[in-house]
């Protein structure tokens, strides 16, 4: 079900991602202000955008679960949040590397952009412990969906708050269209498409894996029921044969 179309999607993802990274190094010019270090921007920012959108999508899927009662939406929400968290790790690591090269520090606590992303990341880092601390699967799905909705609503609010705050050192690269002229903008958009496709591919991949595992579990319990010895079958015993000896 989820594995359908995964192969062409994976191929398109690979082509767009490799094309985007090739454009970042061979097509986009070296930034006059930051130099070569600006090349990190082409993976760092798309990952941040896709991770934040993934968190919001997880919230929307959680809402779909609560409104429809269909537990497949909960699974979709779980996988979207799980992948966004992984992307979040990538954002924090690549951002720290960029900060070390550009500012001379791995982390700047006064910068609202960095701290706000860390807050969002840590908020979602509590999602899995919360989820798996609840044993009842229905309650687990309901609580996880409620968490996904509340946290998902927090993400855009947080983004707007950061935009309104006074920046310290972190560049606001997407605040106006003039910030990404010509080749920079095209390369950035291709990289963004590549990372978004990567997210979609991995989401489908994980969903297919989870769906297969679920089907196997159901099959196992059915087979176990079939194998378990039930009540002894009734046999028609002819009179006088094998009957109690009196």
């Amino acid at each position, binding site marked *: 079900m989820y594995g359908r179309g995964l192969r062409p999607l994976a191929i398109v993802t690979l082509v767009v991602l490799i094309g985007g*990274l090739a454009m970042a190094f061979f097509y986009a010019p070296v*930034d006059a*202000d*930051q*130099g*070569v*270090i600006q*090349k*990190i921007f082409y*993976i*760092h920012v798309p*990952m941040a955008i896709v991770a934040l959108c993934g968190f919001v999508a997880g919230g929307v899927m959680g809402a779909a679960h609560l409104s429809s009662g269909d537990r497949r939406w909960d699974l979709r929400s779980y996988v979207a949040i799980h992948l966004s968290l*992984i992307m979040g*790790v*990538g954002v924090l*690591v*690549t951002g720290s*590397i*960029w900060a*070390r*090269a*550009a*500012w*001379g520090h791995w982390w700047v606590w006064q910068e609202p952009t960095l701290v706000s992303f860390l807050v969002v990341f840590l908020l979602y880092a509590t999602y899995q412990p919360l989820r798996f601390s609840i044993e009842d699967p229905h309650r687990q799905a309901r609580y996880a969906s409620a968490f996904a909705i509340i946290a998902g609503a927090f993400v855009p609010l947080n983004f707007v708050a950061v935009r309104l705050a006074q920046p310290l050192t972190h560049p606001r690269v997407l605040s106006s269209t003039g910030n990404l002229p010509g080749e920079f903008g095209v390369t950035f958009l291709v990289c963004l498409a590549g990372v978004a496709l*990567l997210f979609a591919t*991995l989401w489908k*991949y*994980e969903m297919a*894996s989870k769906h*297969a*595992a679920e089907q*196997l579990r159901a*099959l*196992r319990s059915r*087979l*176990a029921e*079939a*194998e378990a010895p039930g009540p002894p079958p009734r046999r028609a015993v002819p009179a006088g044969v094998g009957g109690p000896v009196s």
Partner: protein
Amino acid sequence: MPALSLGQAGPYVAGAYLAFLGLILVYVAIMAGRLSRLERELERLAALARRVGGEPPEEETGP
């Protein structure tokens, strides 16, 4: 801070891209581990299904 030269900035850029690649590879490796667990489970279930159905165990065939 002034822009770093290619020699100075190179390791940082390579480090960031390798971190990105490493993250994807770790994820794919974990998923591959899960897939092999699913395959083992499928083999166990196939054996169980044969037992329940009273069929003889399937012989190993070539690819």
